[in-house]
């Protein structure tokens, strides 16, 4: 199966800088929204996403093609987010809920497009970080349980169990707002 990310990345390694733009255009928004589920701050998530691209390009790691490029990029982003949270905890610096509503709305409308998806995404923001991340990977990025497990460094079983609990919590959140969505 064609992996457009992998193809662009290969071209970038061969010296084509325009391929980097393709990667940023294709993956940046989703990655930022995913990382926001960890760090609770759009601007931090945006910086971490940029760090992920820098790391990817600077280290030029071998992508062995056993997983999709997106899975790989998200795994790198997740590691960076965890490092950031560790550092923040050590420095007693707690990430804040920032008032970056405009940026958040822009990303949501650009990446999620549909109003219903945006509503669901906002409801997800009130769930536990672990639930947010799982639902994001499985339902917004449409990854398989196996791919999500790879990124989250959990077993497929653990991800399935998390997804079950997360769906239940999300449904409660949506019901609280009077939204019924049997597809969630």
């Amino acid at each position: 199966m064609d992996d457009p990310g992998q193809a662009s990345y290969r071209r970038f390694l061969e010296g084509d800088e325009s391929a980097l733009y393709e990667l940023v255009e294709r993956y940046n928004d989703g990655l930022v929204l995913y990382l926001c589920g960890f760090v609770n701050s759009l601007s931090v998530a945006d910086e971490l996403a940029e760090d992920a691209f820098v790391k990817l390009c600077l280290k030029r790691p071998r992508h062995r093609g056993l997983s999709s490029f997106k899975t790989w990029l998200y795994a790198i982003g997740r590691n960076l987010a965890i490092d950031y949270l560790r550092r923040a905890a050590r420095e007693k610096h707690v990430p804040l809920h920032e008032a970056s509503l405009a940026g958040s709305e822009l990303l949501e409308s650009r990446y999620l497009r549909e109003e219903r998806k945006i509503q669901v995404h906002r409801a997800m923001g009130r769930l536990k970080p672990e639930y947010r991340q799982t639902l994001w990977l499985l339902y917004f990025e449409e990854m398989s349980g196996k791919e999500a497990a790879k990124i989250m460094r959990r077993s497929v079983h653990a991800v399935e169990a998390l997804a079950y609990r997360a769906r239940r919590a999300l449904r409660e959140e949506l019901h609280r707002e009077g939204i019924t969505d049997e597809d969630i």
Partner: protein
Amino acid sequence: MKTYEEKTQSVIDRLRTERRKRSRRRRTAAACLSCLCIAAAAALSARYDSGVPADTPGGSDVSAWSAADSQSGAETYAVVTDSIVLPEGESAVMADMIGCLVYQGKVYTQGQAITGAEPGENSSFLGEYLGEAKGSLSEWSSQEEWTTEFASTYSGSVYTVSGYDPSFRLCIRQETAEGGEMLQLLENLDGIGLNTGADLFGNRLHLREGTTCVLGLSHQDWNDGRYDRLRALDGLSAEQWKTFLDALFDAPFVKLSGEEHPGFYQAETQGHLFLTQTDGTTVELRLFEGGYVGYPKMSWIFAQMPGETFDAVFAACQ
């Protein structure tokens, strides 16, 4: 928020700056490195000459572990699992890296995760406390970092697991942000010798005495992550299951290869078994046509047990 163009440009600028810095660092380090190489070569040479196995704590490099395994092999095995050897280069960058822990010179890789809502909920799993996992490994770790005792991708307290040989299974206990706990089981499949199924499924996993429930899943459902479709194996009696386990324990291990068996893992008809154990863990087995039984992370090593017993279980998974 930056536009895509701005972000791309920012990444490119940072890359250029980083490369300039690295180039300066490399020139400075070059002189020191040549001295270090001579010292390291001398140390390694002395270590092997003295016959000290390299898998003792503080082992010198990862590739040496496989050498240790073959050295200790007074016994011969049908197969020896692949040792985890890092790719050459300035760092051990692996896109598909999974969770792991380095303990006594062996790499234990991620197995099942067990979560609990309350701390102490899973204390029955915990055996002896061994130390603290550093959470120091990432795709970018150097070879040196990989050789450090308790180097790991997770941080937390390392314990042996009750009922299992610590040379096979350990766990890392972590407290979660929500106030619960998670036990990450880890298994050492790094350069181990195997003759028959009993070596893994008996001596290490204790399937005969431990299995309380057997569920199956078709390959299609497994591929789709439809674990809600796990089901009891239709028409399979307890006696048939016992016969299956007996045959599995007696089955020789074989090592196949992708070159000889192209498309093996892509076969549409496969079976997946989930064996719940008395301690609450689950063992997953993957069945392939021809009587091959695989265990996660063993890639091309299988117990081979062709025959009616295998066929009955294989068919029941579909």
